[in-house]
């Protein structure tokens, strides 16, 4: 089943990574911003939709309410997905380096 998973979007990839610790929406945006040195900026509308979809898929779940802010955490299923994605990325990376010899910059 996992073999059939299409590549994750950058946004989903970083949202899942950010949820190895419980975070609310704004925390996911900040985490992604920091991890990519500002390259990937997630819009609040984008992240809201992604959270809904990830909850439906069972890749993340609600953690506990921190005041009025909802926190989320990655599920085991979500971890499987991201581990598979990392393998896929490694394959892309290794093949790329092998053929091109790496970036000259």
């Amino acid at each position, binding site marked *: 089943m996992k073999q059939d998973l299409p*590549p994750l*979007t*950058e*946004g989903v990839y970083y949202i899942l990574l950010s949820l190895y610790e419980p975070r*609310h*929406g*704004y925390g996911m*945006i900040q985490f992604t911003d920091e991890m990519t040195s*500002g390259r990937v*900026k*997630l*819009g*609040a*509308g*984008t*992240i*809201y*939709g*992604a959270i809904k979809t990830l909850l439906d898929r069972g890749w993340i779940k609600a953690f506990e309410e921190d005041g*009025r*802010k909802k926190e989320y955490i990655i599920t085991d299923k979500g971890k499987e997905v991201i581990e598979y994605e990392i393998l896929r990325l490694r394959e892309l990376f290794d093949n790329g380096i092998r053929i091109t010899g790496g970036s000259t910059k």
Partner: protein
Amino acid sequence: MNEKLTKFRFFLDYEKEEDWVNDMSKQGWHLISFNFNYFTFEKGEPGQYIYRNEMLSGLGAKDQSKEYIEFLQQSGVELVQRRFNWAYFRKNTSDGPFELYTDTSSKITYLNRIYTLFLFLMLVNLLSALTNLTGLFDYQIILGSCNLTVAILLFIPFVKVKKRRDHLKKNLDLFND
């Protein structure tokens, strides 16, 4: 109390409207409320805010958009005003770039929402025009003409939204996001 300014503007393209609101902000006039085509601005520091408008999802599902707005507010986005399913949001320019939708797939989902709404309203007006224009009473001619005008006016943004959406969909052939 700061100086206020009310302007009447009619835009067929909601993105042009957003551009105009942002231009006003750059000149120091910040949108604080709107009522259909009347926009009220308050004098402030030029370029202090970035504005975004949005067609919220589902007129019937009010609770869901309330939850969405709360989510945005918790993420540091300020709600300027909401009327029906049309809303304006803003953020301080000093907080960096401000977009509600940042990747291709969520942009397409959003455009689909607008596309469906325009299509629905257009069809309702066309159907109504057809019924009225073939009707027996004089007043139906006027009603029918109004319906037809609305349908034609809606057709322009409808085509624009469709073009935008199709362009983004083409990007997905090459790019993952």
